[in-house]
């Protein structure tokens, strides 16, 4: 097969991941083309790219999900390849296929691979074929023509035991997933999950899985050359989650032993080899207290949390994706003997930890991001910008490296203390508490830790706090002087307002464009 060559790459994404991909392209001397909807005009990813092409669409989210618009932009710009980032079109087989048909290199797995792994039932089958244990589940037809659960589904649910999980067959990354606590909840939950799945993924198929608890979330980063050659880049642990979405990730896992690492990395490579995987992928597992591991899904793209793997391997994962896409294959000796040190990433989100982590929107009136030894920031917003309601409300990924986990934890605490955001409510105060949580510091967290233990304690402690002297003084000064001061310092009477995006722009929020990993 002739090696494809390209010197211009279009990034079919926005925000921090688009900026991240552009950085590698620039370092490689490859020209970058950004795409953007009008609401993102002047955004960091647009300014970072060598060129930018507007995607004209009434709906901002729909613009980044429009295969035809993105392909047309690539052709117009003379790009030879498309990097899809994560979320949006990154795991859409029809997009990968459309790229191929348009003569563009899709920087990711083959369309057939995306089809096989995007369907969770088929992914579970592929995992079983590769000899991997999967979480106990039932993959029959759960809902009859009358809309009620089938007899088989009710019997299977009883056998699996409650609580159990309903998952969209075409879902993934924690989306299209619902917990069912009792048989009485099953009919409504099945109907609701199917409805959401149809709306989010265009397919209402649902299957059932036993809810394993308590477990850790451990995932293996792997690369494939597309011809059966595969390599792993160790594991990441992402047990700290809320709403089935990751908040803090680390590499290597907090508690790992050689035998478990070998089992997990061998399993990830087995499934990658089985599908002759091309590019970067992640195999996700749940690991119980006896180190029993269950395959969850493959994320067929670059993950949000890839920086922690880059920290402990010294590799540029986007660079490796480019190498594979250029037909250069994988470097020899890609696999290392052991991870170098320890890395932790925290996701700074505009969301309210006091109110069930609900997404927030508003102006970024002030933003201070950390730096220093062993500190990395990936961000796609800046001071003066805003977090709207159209997209995932991530502000930045803060990642730190330490010689060991203890140093990484200390650096994370320091980096979070250095970070400041004003204008939009964020999870920053919660992240600071999480970084000091004894269970996290000891590396003993499980996936339920935030929602069952840490967040309720944090909320209770926060409510009990009295207003301090600083707040009382600042409040009194604000009331007495702010009208004049805000006008005099250039903010103007209508200057920096704590106003929200107009309600009329509300779109389908977080509907598939974001992701757990």
């Amino acid at each position, binding site marked *: 097969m002739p090696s494809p060559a390209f010197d211009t790459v279009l990034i079919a994404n926005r925000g921090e991941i688009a900026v991240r991909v552009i950085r590698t392209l620039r370092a490689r001397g490859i020209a970058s083309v950004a795409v953007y909807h009008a609401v993102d005009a002047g955004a960091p990813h647009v300014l970072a790219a060598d060129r930018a092409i507007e995607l004209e669409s009434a709906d901002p989210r729909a613009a980044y999900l429009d295969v035809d618009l993105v392909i047309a932009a690539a052709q117009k710009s003379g790009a030879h390849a498309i990097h899809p980032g994560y979320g949006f079109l990154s795991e859409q087989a029809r997009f990968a296929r459309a790229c191929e048909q348009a003569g563009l290199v899709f920087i990711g797995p083959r369309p057939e691979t995306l089809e096989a792994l995007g369907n969770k039932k088929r992914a579970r089958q592929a995992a079983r074929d590769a000899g991997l244990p999967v979480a106990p589940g039932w993959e029959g037809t759960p809902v009859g023509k009358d809309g009620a659960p089938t007899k088989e589904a009710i019997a299977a649910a009883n056998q699996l035991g409650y609580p159990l999980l309903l998952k969209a067959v075409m879902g993934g990354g924690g989306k299209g997933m619902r917990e069912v606590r009792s048989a009485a909840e099953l009919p409504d939950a099945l109907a609701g999950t199917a409805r959401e799945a149809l709306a989010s993924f265009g397919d209402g198929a649902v299957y059932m899985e036993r809810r394993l608890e308590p477990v850790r979330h451990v995932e293996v980063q792997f690369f494939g050359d597309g011809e059966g050659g595969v390599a792993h880049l160790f594991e990441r642990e992402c047990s700290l989650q809320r709403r089935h979405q990751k908040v803090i990730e680390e590499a290597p896992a907090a508690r790992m032993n050689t035998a478990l690492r070998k089992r997990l990395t061998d399993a990830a490579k087995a499934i990658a080899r089985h599908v002759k995987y091309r590019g970067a992928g992640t195999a996700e597992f749940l690991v119980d207290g006896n180190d029993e591991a269950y395959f969850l899904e493959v994320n067929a793209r670059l993950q949000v949390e890839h920086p922690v793997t880059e920290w402990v391997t010294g590799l540029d994962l986007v660079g490796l994706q480019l190498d594979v896409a250029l037909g250069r294959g994988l470097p020899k000796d890609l696999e290392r003997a052991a991870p170098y040190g320890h890395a932790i990433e925290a996701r700074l989100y505009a969301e*309210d930890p*006091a*109110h*069930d982590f*609900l*997404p*927030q*929107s*508003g*102006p970024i*009136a*002030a933003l201070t991001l950390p730096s220093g030894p062993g500190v990395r920031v990936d961000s796609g917003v800046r001071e003066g910008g805003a977090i709207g*309601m159209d997209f995932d409300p991530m502000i930045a990924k803060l990642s730190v490296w330490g010689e060991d986990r203890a140093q990484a934890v200390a650096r994370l605490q320091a980096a979070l203390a250095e*970070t*400041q*955001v*004003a*204008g939009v*409510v*964020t999870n*920053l*105060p919660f992240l600071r508490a999480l970084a000091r949580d004894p269970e996290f510091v000891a590396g003993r967290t499980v996936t339920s830790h935030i929602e069952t233990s840490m967040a309720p304690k944090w909320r209770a402690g926060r409510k009990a706090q009295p*207003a301090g*002297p*600083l*707040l*009382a*003084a*600042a*409040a*009194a*000064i*604000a*009331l*007495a*002087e*702010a009208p004049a*001061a*805000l006008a*005099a*310092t*250039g*903010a103007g*009477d*209508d*200057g*920096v*307002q*704590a*106003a*929200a*995006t107009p*309600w009329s722009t*509300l779109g*389908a*929020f*977080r509907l598939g464009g974001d992701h757990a990993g």
Partner: protein
Amino acid sequence: MRVDGKALEEPAPLPPHRWSAGGRLVLTIEGREVEAIVLRAGAGRYEVWIDSERHVVEADRAGGGSRGGGGEEDALVAPMPAKVLRLEVAAGSAVELGQTLLVLESMKMELGITSPRAGRVERVGAGVVVGAIVPAGTVLIELVPEPDAR
């Protein structure tokens, strides 16, 4: 004045301070300079951000601050811009701890606002009616303790 819906005494004297661009307010407290960021949040109302936490600040309403037992009254504020989906109480309603007072909708998600304690609804915030869009920080419900219950 009211901070986060609770009455708070104004400190006197006020500490040394200066303003700079972007609503930055630098105060000297116990010999140390600390920064707050002040943003307008509507007529007579400000957001004061300290260490990345939002506080909503407003002056006492005429007659509103004269009630005794400072800090007992409770104003529940909208945590985010939202639409009022349901309003389940009216002025004068007796409420129990944890009772749902109203339901907001934001970003296609419902958020129930529950009572932080037993008491009586003194008033429903201005403009808080079913179907209304309320900005973050809007006072939704003001509670007072039920005198008989104490």
